[in-house]
């Protein structure tokens, strides 16, 4: 439903996106990944018409988004910016109610549909119990759910979110991503999110967009495109990609990117080292099972430095199938 044609966008003198042609699949959870300053947030903001492109167009169901009244766009496209300003003293229900703005006028400030939509959104985002609390007294995870509820109250077919999991602890990250997954799976919404965590992206996305330096490097289902080569191309990071023990989705385990000055004693596996760890593309099925069960990273906790790059690579998929209860796979919701 969303697409870009020859999109050029940036800030002041700096061009961030240079000639982007992209189609975002409808009824899918699309995740945009890439290193810092690669233009993923710029892309999301341009898609959401928060940033006016210098050239090219964003198409919403085939119509240029800039030709549509902003109010109409807001009924079809919800957007959650990266770190929205929390108004002081506004209650949760009040803030969620502002998601109904595109349906309201100053002489028609509230309707039965508004009330229903707000109730539904608060229930869906699990903030109904907080309705009377001021938003600025809530924890980070609760706040994020409130903001998501506000965009849900907009009742849009599509939802764009800029790093919805940043600043949240792991449990809250999973909570938010599960919610987005449910929106896609149960309600057929189109969800587009910028995520920093490659493993979460791989786990939750139906469609992955990998960007680097304002260009799209690869697009497609994570299982098809997320390889060690791609991670090296996009992030300049040597890594190993293995099937996730819980979901079978690709799991990115960083290798050592540079010779560390002082390796902690006993941490280095015999084969460790940037040159040897790097070329391993996908899990090696011939590797012996169960060799180091204790060091298997829990799904979703990417980014932590591995003790030795070789160890997780020795796990294989069949072994993983025997350990199903590390965490819930979102497909089960």
């Amino acid at each position, binding site marked *: 439903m969303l697409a870009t044609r020859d999109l050029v966008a940036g800030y002041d003198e700096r061009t961030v996106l240079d000639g982007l042609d992209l189609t975002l699949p409808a009824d899918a959870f699309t995740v945009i990944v890439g290193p810092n300053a690669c233009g993923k947030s710029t892309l999301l903001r341009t898609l959401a018409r928060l940033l006016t492109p210098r050239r090219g167009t964003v198409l919403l169901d085939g119509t240029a988004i800039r030709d549509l009244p*902003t109010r109409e766009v807001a009924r079809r496209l919800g957007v959650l910016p990266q770190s929205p300003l929390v108004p002081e003293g506004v209650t949760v229900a009040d803030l969620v109610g502002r998601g109904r703005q595109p349906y309201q006028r100053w002489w028609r400030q509230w309707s039965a549909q508004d009330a229903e939509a707000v109730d539904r959104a608060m229930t869906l985002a699990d903030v109904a119990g907080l309705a009377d609390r001021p938003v600025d007294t809530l924890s980070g995870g609760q706040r994020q759910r409130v903001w998501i509820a506000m965009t849900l109250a907009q009742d849009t077919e599509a939802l764009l979110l800029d790093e919805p999991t940043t600043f949240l602890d792991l449990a809250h990250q999973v909570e938010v991503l599960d919610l987005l997954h449910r929106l896609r799976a149960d309600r057929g919404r189109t969800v587009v999110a910028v995520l920093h965590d490659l493993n979460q992206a791989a786990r939750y996305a139906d469609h992955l967009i990998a960007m680097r330096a304002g260009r799209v490097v690869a697009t497609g289902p994570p299982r098809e495109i997320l390889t060690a080569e791609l991670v090296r191309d996009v992030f300049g990071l040597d890594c190993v990609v293995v099937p996730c023990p819980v979901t079978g989705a690709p799991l990115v385990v960083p290798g050592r990117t540079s010779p560390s000055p002082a390796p902690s004693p006993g941490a280095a596996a015999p084969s460790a080292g940037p040159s040897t760890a790097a070329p391993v593309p996908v899990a090696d099925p011939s590797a012996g099972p169960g060799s180091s069960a204790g060091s298997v990273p829990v799904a979703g906790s990417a980014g932590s430095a591995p003790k030795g790059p070789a160890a997780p690579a020795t796990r294989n998929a069949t072994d993983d199938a025997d350990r199903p209860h590390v965490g819930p796979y979102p497909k089960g919701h």
Partner: protein
Amino acid sequence: MGGLPGRALVRVGPVSLQVRRRAVLVALASTVLLAAAAVLSLSLGTPYVAPADVLRALSGAGTPYDLVVLDLRLPRLVLAAVAGATFGLAGTLIQSVARNPIASPDVVGITQGAGLAATVAITTGAAAVLVAPAALLGGLVAALLLLALGARHGLAAQRFVLAGVAVAFALRALTEVVLLSADPIDGLRAQIWLIGTLAGKGWTETWWIVGTLVALLPVLAWAGWALNATALDDDTARGVGLRPVARRIGLAATGVLLAAAVTAQVGAVDFVALVAPQLARRLVRAERPPLVCAALVGALLLVLADLAGRRLFAPTQLPAGVLTAAIGGPYLMFLLVRGRRRSA
């Protein structure tokens, strides 16, 4: 169908308005207080008129006090109420756009623009009837300067306040220059204007302010609703289908128009526009000052300030501007001491 927590729903045919319950209570309470202050203001003075006689005079029964109550005191009282309410509205609009409780017409330069123009008009010996139009023009020119300086980044809150403070300082300096080079008698008259007083003013000034309010009534009805969105940041506001920059410019323009109109009539009565919205906001416990309550609180403040100015050191009359400044200064200190939580 329920409204949001703390809000009541007012439905008249196709119109449905969200009203904060606390705002209704605060509005009722301040109306009662305003009425009481009005009766007090009409009865106190020389001669003293008993409140019962005041009410009888107001009802048109014909009393020996008609001259004092209806012709001498009432015009000034109504002007105080109308001007105070307008200051409250202007302050609410400007503070909400600036997202800053310290921003008000007398901080961002509107009052100083009006003051400079009025000073020039008075000291150059222009006809007395020209002072108010000159002040109005001065206030609007200052507002244009402010909007031009502040508009570059979509009238962002910080920039708006800084630009306003710069405009205010520059205009105040120019006013000093004009005052120093003026004839002492004219200079004194200008200084009284600059402090702001209601003495000797009445129906004419009131009608000018009321006319402006009536002309802006549709805009104010919209503003009461549009102000809700000023608490959201620009990206979030755009996300829900608003045009935050256009909205801010519209609200700010309405605010400065009101501020210039009222300052032109009563002079630079400081701090009512600063204090009334914040007082109303705290009473209603909302995230931004509510328009109607701020207007009522502003009216109450100026009526009380004018009454105190008349009676405190009688027979010496203090200009209302001195009294409002005496309230506003400590209030500003209170805001600063309390720690600047980002608000309004």
